[in-house]
């Protein structure tokens, strides 16, 4: 049956077999990707270190979340829209109660959520900020030059995940099983694409920041 004719069938397909396929591809792809990185490792470093690596590495993992004041002054729009939508996306992903239930179902861990209207507002802001990042990508000479088809694909998938979530929550697509099914479907697309595209940065960013912080930290610089 088609999606329109059988929305509940569509929802159950996305919640059942497709979810399993998506999570399997995600887990496989991500584990492969992380193994690729971590097993490559680093060559031994014989230079006398000025300081340790672990703490500076961990510090950089945290501190790179916010820009230095100079960069913020030079690229406030880029920095702000990026920060806003990332924070919004994470709030919606991790603090929306239905999502917490999903994570609890998957991994057995849970935490307190935020009131739905607050998450709803955050989601709306996230959508606006995401739209702004697209405009910025299409207009700023550097981003225009850097961007590949993959960048636009990833933007589209990310935007659609948030948009369908917003539409489903606000029940702007009817019937609801169709709306929820579309949201789950786009989220699964996101999961499937994650290990094979730059979406991997969600996980590798911690490794990259750590390597950076460790390398600078070893030389006595807080990076």
């Amino acid at each position, binding site marked *: 049956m088609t999606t329109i004719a059988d929305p509940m069938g569509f929802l159950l397909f996305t919640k059942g077999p497709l979810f399993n396929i998506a999570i399997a591809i995600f887990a496989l792809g991500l584990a492969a990707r992380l193994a690729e990185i971590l097993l*490559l490792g680093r060559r031994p470093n014989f230079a006398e270190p000025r300081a340790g690596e672990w703490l500076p590495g961990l510090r950089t993992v945290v501190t790179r979340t916010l820009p230095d004041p100079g960069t913020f002054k030079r690229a406030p729009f880029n920095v702000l829209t990026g920060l806003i939508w990332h924070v919004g996306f994470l709030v919606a992903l991790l603090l929306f109660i239905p999502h917490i239930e999903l994570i609890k179902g998957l991994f057995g861990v849970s935490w307190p959520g935020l009131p739905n209207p607050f998450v709803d507002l955050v989601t709306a802001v996230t959508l606006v900020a995401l739209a702004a990042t697209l405009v910025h990508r299409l207009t700023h000479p550097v981003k225009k030059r850097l961007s590949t088809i993959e960048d636009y694909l990833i933007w589209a998938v990310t935007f659609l995940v948030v948009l369908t979530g917003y539409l489903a929550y606000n029940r702007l697509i009817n019937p609801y099983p169709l709306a929820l099914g579309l949201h789950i479907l786009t989220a699964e697309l996101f999961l499937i694409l994650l290990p094979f595209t730059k979406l991997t940065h969600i996980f*590798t960013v911690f490794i990259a920041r750590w390597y950076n912080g460790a390398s600078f930290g070893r030389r006595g*610089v807080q990076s």
Partner: protein
Amino acid sequence: MSPIANPVVNPEATAFNLERGLAAFRAEIDGPVAAFFSSCVHCGICAQSCPFYLETGDPKYTPILKLEPLRLVWESEFTLWGKIKGALGLQQRVTDAMLAEWEELIYDSCSMCGRCSMVCPVGNDIQAMVRKSREGMVAAGHAPEGLAGAAVRAVKTGSPMGLQWKTLQVQIEHVQTSSGLTVPVDQAGVDYLVMLSSMEVINFPEYLEAITKIFDHAGVTWTLSTQCFEATNAGIQIGNKDIAALLVERVVDAAVTLGVKNVISPECGHAYTAIRWEGPNLIGRRYPFRVFHIIEVMDQLRAQGRITTAGKELDRLSLHDPCNLARKSGVIQQQRNLMDLVAEQFVELPEHGRFQWCCGAGGGVSSNERAEPLKLAAFKRKKAQIEAVEPERMVTMCATCRTQLEEGLEHFNMDIPVVGLTELIADHLVDKEEPT
């Protein structure tokens, strides 16, 4: 791992080619490179940290874009996804033409200042990857002529500028005459082996006299080595570990011959990072001595109370942190401690220390004649910083930075002299005559 001469060199064949370059790129890929490329989201923030982009406005100078050849090698040969794409014929490959196009990006428009590595939101150490990319560029025959020439001269004459010991000898005699002190040469078992940079010897001869006075004042035992006086490393600048290792070995050999405990890198940025951080890895073993920058040594002496100064400079002084020394080596507070000894009015540039802006001449840009216009363009960022605080003089501690600052300020008709911090300290040592 000193370089082994290839036994089957065919003089007819081109020494460098794409395949050799790709092999060199491949040999550079490690976990951090994979993590960095996996994490880049094309946000473009690195461009906001690059003087070459900011002052030209040309997006091709975006730092991460300079790494495209290395990224392609990584993606096509080191990722499952790239291999799948390759099997489907969808994977872009590095070509000789591409490397030719990238030569300007990797050499002329990058001073390896590392500012991009400091601001990248996902933590990519872009500067380190430019260094790695240069390995592939050299092996593929796409290194700039100016850098290749410097490397050849460094290997063949012992100095990238072709400077001979006999020239230095003349200077030593001049210093001894003017200061009345002895410049120790080939003294075994002393605390410090002092290395010099050719540019310093030629452009800023006052440095040698300054350290002679300071060490005499502080009671430090030290020496120069006739076996090797050159601290700079053209192999690092061109980006070739074989040449670089050969040059590092010379320093190590000299230090070992004299049995010194410490080696002092001069007022030069890349010489310090070359010998301090890259050197042991280039030769594949730890040193039997420690390495310090002259600024570190002076600050240690200051902290030990072995440097006593009198009087202060009364004019408004500001400080340029060399990238290699500050951001890339963590020597940031030391020069400020020393400035406090001798400066009445010290003003910081708006962004300094680890977030300072490059003068535009590092990373081999100054040895690459072709890059002259870009070098001058990048300097405008420094110029704007200097204009913001309006100092009467600039102080720095790297011969390359100092030359660039002098030339740049002169180009823009700004009457701001540049002085080396070591000389400034030497000028204020007690129980010495007024400087001439």
